[in-house]
């Protein structure tokens, strides 16, 4: 967390006595842009950041500006609302401290949904990551028509989530949907269940849709990652006598590790917050057994107009993901630092 604090205290870094622009650094490449003497006045007067740091600020500016304008304020408002009593318009009318959170904690349904969200996320991310990796390896093999195969892989992702969800909902129907008809007629599953009719199969059905939508992304990201591995490493391993499997473990996996770690972290966040799929395919039913935190939050806000508790759920989601990410991020930053 130290790093984070220092970002905000950027201006006060003068106290730390950072080196000046003109001072030569050990490595010529890191000396920063060529500074003509005239500009030096402004630069030196502005702050005592290193040349690199000033450049970094310039480079980070667009991203930071966008986020400050369009994310920080909305998120801030939400956090404030979580601690307030809201009217039906979402305006905060008073403060209830931890009241909203306590009410959520007292509701057994909330804990059920919370646990279910973990299950949903764990299963989803595991399958997406492993299947995505497998798919990427497949698509990396040199076979003719690979380009077409890659193109076809992207298609599920290219359909808007709500539309995919609706198409799947239709396909899952035991009377009209082609899934059960296909399973029955090919003999793969002579008596398939009515997927959306029972809680457990409905959960699995939702899971399948979420995985289906998320798989192309992973395949693509891992595929891109595989391109960054220089073939020399494979050749070296082959010379050392490593077979295909051993090459995978000793070359591919280590190189892909940062991608896998970061990709799965992002996937955890996205899957945790996946709204369209459970909401549209089953509307959180039957009997709210497919409700996850984000659909529950949506209902609380828009159906019941309880914006305070809904914001509280948002904060809980955020804190949960933050804690998880911090644990996970240690892995990542250790890789990269």
């Amino acid at each position, binding site marked *: 967390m130290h790093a984070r604090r220092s970002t905000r205290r950027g201006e006060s870094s003068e106290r730390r006595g950072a080196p000046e622009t003109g001072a030569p650094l050990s490595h010529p490449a890191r000396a920063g842009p060529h500074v003509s003497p005239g500009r030096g006045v402004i630069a030196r007067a502005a702050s005592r950041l290193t040349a690199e740091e000033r450049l970094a600020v310039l480079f980070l500016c667009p991203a930071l500006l*966008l986020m400050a304008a369009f994310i920080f304020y909305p*998120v801030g408002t*939400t956090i404030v609302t979580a601690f307030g009593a809201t009217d039906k318009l979402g305006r905060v009318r008073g403060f209830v401290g931890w009241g909203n959170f306590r009410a959520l904690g007292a509701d057994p349904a909330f804990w059920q949904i919370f646990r279910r969200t973990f299950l949903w996320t764990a299963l989803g991310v595991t399958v997406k990551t492993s299947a995505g990796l497998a798919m990427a390896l497949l698509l990396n093999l040199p076979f003719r028509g690979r380009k077409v195969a890659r*193109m*076809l892989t992207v298609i599920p992702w290219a359909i808007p989530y709500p539309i995919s969800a609706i198409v799947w909902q239709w396909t899952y129907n035991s009377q009209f949907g*082609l899934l059960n008809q296909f399973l029955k007629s090919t003999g793969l599953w002579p008596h398939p269940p009515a997927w959306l009719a029972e809680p457990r199969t409905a959960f699995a059905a939702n899971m399948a849709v979420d995985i289906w939508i998320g798989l192309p992304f992973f395949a693509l990201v891992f595929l891109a990652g595989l391109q960054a591995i220089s073939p020399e490493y494979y050749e070296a391993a082959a010379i050392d006598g490593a077979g295909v499997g051993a090459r995978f473990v000793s070359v591919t996996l280590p190189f892909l590790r940062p991608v896998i770690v970061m990709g799965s972290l992002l996937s955890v966040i996205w899957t945790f917050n996946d709204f369209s799929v459970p909401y549209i395919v089953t509307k959180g039913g039957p009997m709210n057994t497919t409700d996850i935190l984000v659909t529950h939050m949506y209902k609380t806000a828009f159906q019941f107009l309880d914006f305070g508790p809904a914001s509280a759920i948002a904060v809980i989601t955020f804190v949960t993901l933050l804690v998880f990410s911090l644990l996970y991020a240690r892995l990542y930053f250790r890789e990269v630092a």
Partner: protein
Amino acid sequence: MPDQPAAVAVRLPALRRRRARSRRWRAVILQGGGWTLSGLALFVLLFPILVMLSTSLKTLNDVYRVPPSWVPAPFTLQNFADIWARYPLGAYLRNSLIIGVGATALNLAAAIPAGYAVARLRFRGRQGFMLLLLLIQMFSPIVVLIPLFKIMAALHWLDTYWALIVTNTVFTLAFSTWMLASYFRAIPAEIEEAALVDGCTRAQTILRIAIPVAAPGVVTTIIYVFITAWNEFIFALTFISRTEMRTLTVGLYTFIGRWAVQWHYLMAAALVGVVPVVILFMFVERHLVRGLALGSVK
């Protein structure tokens, strides 16, 4: 390998022939295996797409046949004609395209420098910045919907392209910055240093060296941002109310009526909506190949 010259001279051609044969076999197995496994995976993946294809070629009555059949009876292309004639599908596509391209461009404009900074420059708060990007991802768009809506209203950006371009940019910034940073980091420092010593500015280094070498990362970012913006629903539904400004996703949703879903139109239009994404992918896919850029730089 035995190094008696005579024995070698005898065995070499035979060895070469055997090697050539095994190489051919390997190629065949690779070809067949690649396609079989991919084919299987693709079939599972594309099952709903096949459903969509089949449905889009049916008449509405045929869609509701119980039990359903894969083969349309009668086969009709009328749906594809209808969606263009009866609905402003062209306008929807145009809007989605503008927003997709705009968001991609804006995102790259912000993420390339930011990614480069995270990868190459040493500055305090570097890890903090990455963490900040990640934190932003943790809020579902639904959470920020109403406050963001108020911001857009205050900026008079409702019913304009800007609202969605900016929103889609902001929500994909974390991924693109990370992706680009990891690719920039993988570029050997010597190449850049050589360029800088030769008199290039940082900007030129980035443009002429870093980006081409990081091509797979840039391509992945482009695809990711474009598809995310193309598919986005909740913000598009909330910020845009005029019919002619609707995006494709919102337009598709209007086929879902209060009492019935016009499946035949919905599927046809959804398939049409996939085409631009596929075209984009076809253009950039060749950069998803290793070594290409590195080689050209050297």
